């Protein structure tokens, strides 16, 4: 059923995300944008010794894009930069843990796209 994607955790994170906000003087940040709906997510990273020491996201969007970005931030905190660079689309879908249909894929991946942008544009040696 299509409503499986609105699992309790998704709605809870949409309403009160754990990692929403900006980081001043982030080591890397990037925004990505879903032209289909105008949603945007910006990811901020702090890096220490090749590891993610803090990560936040800002922006606006649907329950899926916001919850996915929040879950991604929790995950990123446990990773090294190298590990994050290797993260694939499927990894993000697995993290979300709900079945995503084709039309919502962009929503689920928006945070990851922004993260990839940040990792690419890092303003210091991250």
């Amino acid at each position: 059923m299509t409503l499986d994607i609105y699992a309790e955790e998704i709605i809870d994170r949409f309403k009160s995300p754990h990692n929403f906000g900006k980081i001043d003087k982030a080591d890397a940040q990037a925004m990505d944008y879903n032209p289909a709906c105008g949603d945007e997510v910006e990811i901020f990273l702090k890096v220490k010794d090749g590891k993610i020491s803090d990560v936040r996201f800002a922006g606006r969007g649907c329950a899926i894009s916001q919850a996915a970005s929040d879950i991604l931030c929790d995950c990123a905190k446990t990773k090294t930069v190298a590990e994050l660079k290797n993260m694939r689309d499927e990894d993000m879908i697995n993290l979300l843990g709900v079945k995503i249909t084709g039309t919502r894929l962009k929503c689920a991946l928006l945070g990851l796209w922004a993260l990839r942008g940040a990792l690419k544009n890092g303003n210091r040696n991250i």
Partner: protein
Amino acid sequence: MADFFTIRADFLILKQKINGKRLVYLDSAATSQKPKQVIEAEKVFYETINANVARSIHYLSEKATEAYENSRKKVADFINSDSDEIIFVRNTTEAINLAANGLDFKKDDEIITTLMEHHSNIVPWQIICKKTGAKLKIVDTLPDGQLDLKQFEKFLSSKTKLVAVTHVSNVLGTINPVKEITRLAKKFGALVLIDGAQGAPHMKVDVNDIGCDFYAFSGHKLLAPTGIGVLFGKKEILDKMQPFLYGGHMIKKVTKESSTFMDAPERFEAGTANFAGAVALGAAIDYLEKIGMENVREHEKELTRYALEKLSKIKDIEIYGPKNAEIRGGVISFNIKGAHPHDVAQILDSEGIAIRSGHACAMPLMQRLGAESICRASFYIYNDKKDVDALVKGLEKVKGVLKL
């Protein structure tokens, strides 16, 4: 009055269940469903008279050409014009691009369009202005969802070469006073192009009465298949315009050095046309004429009135556009506080309800509304009050799922 209860039975697609629920199709502003009579007409064309039109001397080609030109006549009558003023194109977008590229714009010319246009009636003009140095002026919308006609009058001058305006907004539903807009534009000798994508399928259109120079619409929003659309253009203007596409069918004579071109409409129909689609469009027009366009409009007006009344009772809903169904087509865009349109659409889908969610190809208007995106329910002849009731009930479910 037409029997709208039996009309639904002609749309076989609506018989299916979606997620176990009765399909409630509220996305006709994106594309309409097709009655079996239209699908049958295309099928019969392919099974009995398919051949390339106006090319070969044989029975099938004669018949196919006759059917194609017969459809052109039906379209011409449908909007009260002449056959040689009807150009078959793919869709409204192509029609507008054809006009934009065929007309001759110069530096210092001015083009006026509006904030409530679909991207297809903004972007081509932006590009023309970039190429030619002409200037684009964009008429604002008022808080009630109508065009700021005072500003429009201020924009008009002897420099105004063309006014491009939508008949009905695909977001706000606003029915623009196109006859009055044309009258004002004509005082300055400007050409007028009307985007009729949301107009022609839903109400009686008389281009002669409006006085416009161009009227564009798509078949697929008017019960016909995708890939067939119409540009009406006044004959004397079409004859002065450059072709948009070059190739077969549109030429008079080709030598190694140069070519001469046919008159309108052939001049603008290069390449093998979608003649089967055109024939099906003819069948769609027959279907609508049988109901009567006045009845179509009355039916949608009644549904719109009902929907506005029911929807406005929902807590935390914001409905965009005119609140008066007299000046509003069957398009209702809204947002529910705290709910993203994609989530609203997805939850409604679980109830078998299909709406549009997103920017509806009108990003400049979204900015004016202060919304990133919207939910849009739109009606056609096969919708009824039960569909509106289902939508209202579905929106309550949305609130439940999203804990609003």
